[in-house]
């Protein structure tokens, strides 16, 4: 799968500097990220771990451009994304990021094929080319035979595989996975982790995965712990 616009080929894909994120809850202000600085090399499989409220998912949302930091900067592939306009950020997301959600978040009214096609609707590709890419993505996750099935007709593991196919169909540089095995049994979870590992090793995708599960984190090439909005320590897998 080819992509029209590539991010810079720097060895470091993600560069986060002095990142702060505050949330307001009534009159109270919560500091979720407190000056976090982090570099992620291109092609890395990073697992983010930490207790609830440590800021993992917030960091993931900021890296994916669906939220904005209170201060600090985020560069991805050499491009600063936290200052982009809403429309530019949406366009950037569609080209460079693939999301994999804990609850899969497939559209129940669309079959697997149509769900995977969704990100491609934002490209200028014709229907034939879109379908070629959709079927390639579904084949990659081993679900060619389930293309016409709706989410309600799929198992949890299959739904998540469709979710992964949707995330990779535009050939993004970065895969952001929020507890991708959190809602699956061990066997299905292992299959998803196999798939993410293959995406990382064989397709060269940079994968950032938030997880509570040490078993899942062990599949990553690096585990980064977070606590109270900052990095706790780092350990190589």
């Amino acid at each position, binding site marked *: 799968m080819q992509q029209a616009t590539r991010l810079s080929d720097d060895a470091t894909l993600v560069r986060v500097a002095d990142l702060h994120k505050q949330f307001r809850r009534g009159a109270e202000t919560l500091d979720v990220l407190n000056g976090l600085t982090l570099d992620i090399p291109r092609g890395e499989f990073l697992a983010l771990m930490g207790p609830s409220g440590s800021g993992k998912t917030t960091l993931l949302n900021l890296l994916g451009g669906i939220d904005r930091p209170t201060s600090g900067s985020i560069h991805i592939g050499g491009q600063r994304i936290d200052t982009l306009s809403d429309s530019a950020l949406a366009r950037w997301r569609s080209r460079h990021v693939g999301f994999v959600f804990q*609850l899969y978040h497939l559209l*129940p009214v*669309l079959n697997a094929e149509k769900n995977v096609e969704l990100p491609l609707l934002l490209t200028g590709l014709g229907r034939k080319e879109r379908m070629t890419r959709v079927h390639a993505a579904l084949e990659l996750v081993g679900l060619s035979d389930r293309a016409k099935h709706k989410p309600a007709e799929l198992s949890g593991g299959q739904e998540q595989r469709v979710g992964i196919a*949707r995330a990779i169909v535009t050939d993004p540089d970065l895969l952001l996975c929020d507890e991708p095995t959190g809602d699956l049994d061990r066997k299905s979870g292992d299959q998803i982790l196999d798939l993410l590992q293959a995406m990382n090793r064989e397709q060269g995708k940079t994968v950032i995965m938030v997880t509570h599960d040490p078993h899942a984190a062990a599949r990553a090439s690096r585990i980064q712990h977070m606590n109270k909005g900052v990095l706790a320590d780092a350990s190589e897998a």
Partner: protein
Amino acid sequence: MKFLGLLWANLRRRKTRLIVTLLSILVAFFLYTYLSAVKTAFTSGLDIAGADRLVTIHKVSLIQLLPVSYAQRIANVEGVEQVVHATWFGGYYQDPRNQLGVFPTTEAYFDIYPEIGISDEHMQAWRRDRTGVLVGMASMNRFGWKVGDKLPITTSIWGNKNGSDTWEFTIAGTYDAAKEGVDTTAIIFHYDYFNEARAFGQDMVGWYILRIDNPDRAEEISKEIDALFANSPYETKTSPEKAFMQGFMSQIGNIGAIFIAVVGVVFFTLLLVAGNTMAQSVRERTPEIAVLKALGFSNPRIVTMLLAESLLLAVLGGGAGLGLAWWMVTAGGDPTGGYLPAFFVASGDLVAGIAMILFLGLAAGLLPAWQAARLNTVEAFRKVV
């Protein structure tokens, strides 16, 4: 077009709700279109009323007669190009329920009303036959008459010298509308025959229709005509044909106001129904909209998609209602079996219907689309988890 599949899938997510909403929109626009044809039937005279035509009636009321000798005096007024008179005959065919508009007049009637289409052959046949009538095609079709048929018309007003209320005519020819909206239910016969045969009221006519050279002088000419007959036993009231028709219509009721009131109430209710459907539909898929945003769908695109979805709903339901009513009016014709002088959906009402469909679609989708655009993606995901 590539988003059409997504729009259609979203619309169909709750089939019962979709069908109920579509039916309510369909019924509303069916009602609008069908009522617009009824309104047209009652007001068609207004639409074809000529700006260069005036009508002179007795000052007291339309049912009071005027002397036929007024014709020449009116024709002498500067600016009056042509004058013709007509009289209400009040006839029916066989059964009092088969009421007809029957008028004794002269050939000049067809010069003053060029929107009435008649062939030379039928006009000549009428000239030759003293008891001949010219019948509009709507009535010909309604009763299945043919040219040459004997036509007994009974009147509750004009007995003839034979002591009978039933007049024997022969259908000499037919006329049709040369312009949409022209009444083709009426029957026209010779004033000379009428004047000779009637038992009373000789040399009196119902009203005058006159064509003037300059519509801008209508008021001035009207005053001049009425001044001619002031303080006489038969004082007149002259007005533009449209005003005359409006006065005549107001005796039935303000059809236009009734139409607007009914359509207004239905349309407002419909806006609430369609708006509620869209709002529910968007509310229940908050997480899906958040996913679309995460995938890179921008706010303007989401707003456009939701408005398009709402438009699709309105176009499907409204288009079906409009089309069904148009077909019923066109193919089924006058539901009264010929009482209505003109029964069709005016092109202006069709265009207004289409505009209302588009407005409904946009208005019903606006608030949900705006809410979707304001949706915070992170918050939406947090609520789901």
